[in-house]
């Protein structure tokens, strides 16, 4: 793995129990198609890691294996030092050993989806309080208050009683980010949060994400927004065919692409 910076070397060598999230040697096959071929990454509190890669390189699968929406074939995921325990299933594939642990960890890993996935039968406000009240068991009044504050922050408080189908994509995605924030997650996972948006709506979502990075949130962001990757993230990771092709400090990576693959990838974007 051609590492380009000290950060990358550190991620590869010293497993740090204090990392907000660490993934070690994750592998995943769909049938005989090997989608992830041993991926490791580590994010400390406040890190923003942008995960880049061409279509089909396994970016979504990586995020989905981290919060176990897909079950990885092998590899370790630690959240705040806590290992997600797996057991060997009857068919030879591993499965989570303890669903309660998985649910607890997922609650710490709020996810923002490409297609928002807001619950369409709930108003925006209900979307924001559903998980905090039912998963974290926090008092409803307190959740409502926090939800309103979060909606003000992302600029859609006026729409709090709207249903998701009645809002623009950009508003829905901002609501989805607020829904994730309402969990006070340790790490936020973003899977191409702006890819389903009309170009003129991308900016409003990126602005919210930028503000999250600035306040020190730990984020893993799969994105095709090169500007965001370069200017906002603390680390850029480039996946190619299920492997970490290169990883490093963003300015450095973009100024001097460490591999031919990455060079080609950004060249295609600048066209």
């Amino acid at each position: 793995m051609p590492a380009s910076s000290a950060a990358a070397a550190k991620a590869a060598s010293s497993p740090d129990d204090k990392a907000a999230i660490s993934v070690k040697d994750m592998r995943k096959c769909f049938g005989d198609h090997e989608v992830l071929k041993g991926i490791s990454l580590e994010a400390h509190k406040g890190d923003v890691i942008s995960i880049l890669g061409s279509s089909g390189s396994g970016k979504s699968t990586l995020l989905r294996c981290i919060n176990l929406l897909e079950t990885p074939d092998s590899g370790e995921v630690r959240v705040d030092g806590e290992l997600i325990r797996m057991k060997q299933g009857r068919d030879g594939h591993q499965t989570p050993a303890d669903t309660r642990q998985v649910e607890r960890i997922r609650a710490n890993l709020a996810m923002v989806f490409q297609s928002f996935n807001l619950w369409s039968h709930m108003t925006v406000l209900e979307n924001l309080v559903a998980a905090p009240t039912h998963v974290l068991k926090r008092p409803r009044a307190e959740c409502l208050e926090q939800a309103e504050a979060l909606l003000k922050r992302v600029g859609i408080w006026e729409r709090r009683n709207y249903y998701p189908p009645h809002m623009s994509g950009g508003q829905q995605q901002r609501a989805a980010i607020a829904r994730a924030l309402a969990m006070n997650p340790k790490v936020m996972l973003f899977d191409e949060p702006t890819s389903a948006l009309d170009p003129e709506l991308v900016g409003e979502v990126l602005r919210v994400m930028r503000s999250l990075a600035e306040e020190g949130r730990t984020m893993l962001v799969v994105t095709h927004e090169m500007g965001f990757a370069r200017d906002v993230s603390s680390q850029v990771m480039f996946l190619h065919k299920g492997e970490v092709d290169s990883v490093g400090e963003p300015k450095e990576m973009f100024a001097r692409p460490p591999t031919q693959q990455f060079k080609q990838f950004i060249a295609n974007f600048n066209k």
Partner: protein
Amino acid sequence: MDFDFYLSTMWSVLKALPLTLEIWFFGIAFGLIIATGLTWLRASGHRLGEYFTRGYVFIFRGSPLLVQLYLIYFGLSQFDFVRHSPILWPILRDPMYCTIVAMALNTAAYESEIFRGALRAVPVGQIEAAKAFGMSAFTRFRLVTLPIALRLALPAYSTEIILMTKATALASVVTIMEMMGTAQKIQHDTFRPIEVLTCAGVIYLLLNLSIARLFAWVEYLLSPHLRPAPEQSQQVKPVPEVL
């Protein structure tokens, strides 16, 4: 036109409405319970459960309700163990209970298919979001899958309930004097089938109209997110530059 005859027939048939409603209500109530069980069995992923529900649907959806009713009322009493059973016999010797049992078993087959389809039509992304936020399987089902599936099932379910309203008329063949049985009796006594059947038909129509309106209203209440957006009273503020 003999208005007095129409009026008196109307009145006689209407007096049998409570009995029709009783068959209807208990038929769909027990049917719903059985359908829920079948749907659960089918969704649980057990092999045997799947074979059982498929077989059940094949039999009760594939044969006429009238045949099922005859077999339950006349057929089952042929068996000694049924006649000597302290639980089965009081139910199966009573034509009213038999009709309710036949209707419940029959509608459960259709309803379990309706529910299965509705569950499968719940958008996968909404369930994944519930998973990703740490909801347990039960919470996920209660907060996301079930409310969405119910809304999806409602139109087909209301059609099935209307079919069941009409099916109550079959009770007349096992001697129940509900609306259809009453109408037939008047018809025999007066030899005026057209007037009598018109009266019965009109009452069934009005009954089904009310049921359809009721379901439309429930559907409306449950689906604010599928109606047009509310009037935009306030302009949406743009995201402030400094958050």
